[in-house]
């Protein structure tokens, strides 16, 4: 069965749903009279929610810089700057939530028993299944879109499941997502903002400059030195950009090909280990916010950097492993 269907509309619907959760969160913050920064805080969540809902109507800029019809992207740009100002002036803070007593939680836990795990498991399994099945029914859809649609669909399925199972009040959908959102705070939109930073850097030519600088300092003619500089370069560039994918093309073009592959390195080995060498950098950088900073807020760690600190020894050891492995494998194969 092949559905001829515009999946982008489904995806926009999911963004709109997320937008409504964000706006509801903003309204809750506004209603909390005890929250001293309730105006700034609610503005933050409501603006973010509006961008989510209206994002599909923002005019696209094509490769020649010609603006399409729709809301000018500059408006969103300005709104994002407002978000930054609200965050800079510490206007986004946790509101008060009625705490559920441990006794009540335990009573409920005893009643539901292990069934309480079902929604989480349904959420995970349906995401996985849908991601597997979607390519068969939407072969034309853009790559990567399938995973996002799977997340959206599975979240809806999981929600239906948890509501049926717990018979929880519908208002808890808003209360509880807003509690988790506020725990993450402004950092929850950091991954999205960092992706935008990547776009700004690329437009300004930062990648080319770095590739150029690194290539200028690498001595040629020695496979081991080439490999050391390539792996460290991948990790460093990933630390700066927060994204191994962004680093890969730049560093492989600038260093990987001339100083490793052309010195006799096997391209398949160099490519495979090059990208994961970059991931050693991902473990070390706050720029990889969705892996290091957002989870820190989500787990309520003492410092934003708790996760990075814990990962540092393994990340550095893995970098050494990458250098040794790439050299050894390239000598043999």
């Amino acid at each position, binding site marked *: 069965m092949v559905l001829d269907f515009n999946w982008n509309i489904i995806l926009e619907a999911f*963004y709109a749903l*997320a937008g409504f959760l964000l706006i509801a969160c903003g309204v809750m913050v506004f209603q909390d009279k005890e929250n001293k920064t309730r105006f700034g805080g609610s503005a933050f969540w409501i603006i973010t929610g509006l961008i989510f809902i209206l994002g599909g109507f923002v005019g696209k*800029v094509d490769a020649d810089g010609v*603006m399409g019809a729709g809301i000018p992207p500059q408006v*969103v*740009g300005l709104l*994002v700057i407002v978000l*930054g100002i609200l*965050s800079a002036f510490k206007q986004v803070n946790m509101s008060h939530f009625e705490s559920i007593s441990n006794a009540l*939680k335990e009573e*409920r*836990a005893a009643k539901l028993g292990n069934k*309480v*795990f079902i929604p989480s498991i349904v*959420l995970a399994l349906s*995401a*996985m299944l849908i*991601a597997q099945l979607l390519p068969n029914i939407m072969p034309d859809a853009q*790559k990567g879109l399938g*995973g996002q649609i799977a*997340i959206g669909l*599975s979240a809806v399925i*999981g929600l239906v499941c*948890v*509501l049926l199972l*717990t018979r929880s009040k519908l208002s808890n959908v808003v209360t509880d*997502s807003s509690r*988790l959102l506020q725990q993450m705070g*402004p950092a929850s*939109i*950091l991954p*999205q*903002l960092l*992706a935008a930073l990547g776009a700004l850097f690329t*437009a300004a030519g930062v990648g080319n*400059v*770095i590739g150029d600088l690194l290539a200028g300092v690498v001595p040629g003619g020695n496979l081991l030195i080439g490999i050391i500089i390539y792996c460290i370069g991948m990790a460093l560039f990933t630390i700066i950009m927060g994204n191994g*994918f962004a680093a*890969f*093309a730049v560093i*492989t073009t600038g260093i990987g*090909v001339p100083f490793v592959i052309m010195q006799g390195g096997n*391209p*398949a*080995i160099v*490519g*495979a*280990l090059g*990208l*994961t060498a970059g991931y050693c950098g991902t*473990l070390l950088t*706050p720029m990889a916010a969705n892996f290091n900073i957002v*989870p820190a807020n*989500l*787990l309520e760690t*003492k410092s*934003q950097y708790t996760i990075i600190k814990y990962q540092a020894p*393994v990340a550095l050891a*893995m970098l050494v492993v990458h250098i040794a*492995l790439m050299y050894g494998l390239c000598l043999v194969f």
Partner: protein
Amino acid sequence: MNYWVLIGILIIVIGFALKLDSLAVVLFAGIVTALIGAFNINDVLGSLTNGFDTALTTLGSAFVNNRLMSLFFLTLPVIGIGERYGLRERAMTMIKGMKVATSGRILTFYQAIREVAGFFSLRLGGHPQFVRPLVEPMAQAAAEVEGTVDSNLEDEIKGAAAASENYGNFFAQNTFLASSGVLLIVGTLADLGYGEVTASQVALWSLPVAIIALLLAGVQFYLLDRKIKANGKGQE
């Protein structure tokens, strides 16, 4: 080459080092970089307005185009309501009943499952879906069986739980030959004139790293167990 565009990176590094507000630092760095990128010595005022317009356009478009990075917001109600009904408490009770379960073993096991699932291209895992509701409470519960867990140790266990997800995700994802990482590697190499490299070769050469990452993490999590044990003994 306009080397001044690197100032944005400097702003990021200094901003994060001084623990300034992350959102504001990132925005400031981006806009400064865009302005410098557009800077033209002949027409300072014209290039500044142009640069600012480009910065706003790029920022706005990229922020909208990357909404998918925040789509996990939709999973929050499921987790939040689950927690209201004792999800974390139940996970803890379950682990406390198991004598062999230690924090380190739970985390190693989770990472192993994560890696095997990655190999079979199963999208399993995630900090909001697995670590916060299940893995971290289980690891904390196992630690509490050993004795009192002070707040520093509790924080370290949180770091370890998040790390097990990241290690398993990063170092095993490319063992599946249709993963986006493998496609990127093959595509980039083909662009550079190495079109003979296949996805299955890249996936194969990604295997050793996945195995070594599991071993190294296993050692780190074992050391965590020893610390928990020592801590528990010291307080009883």
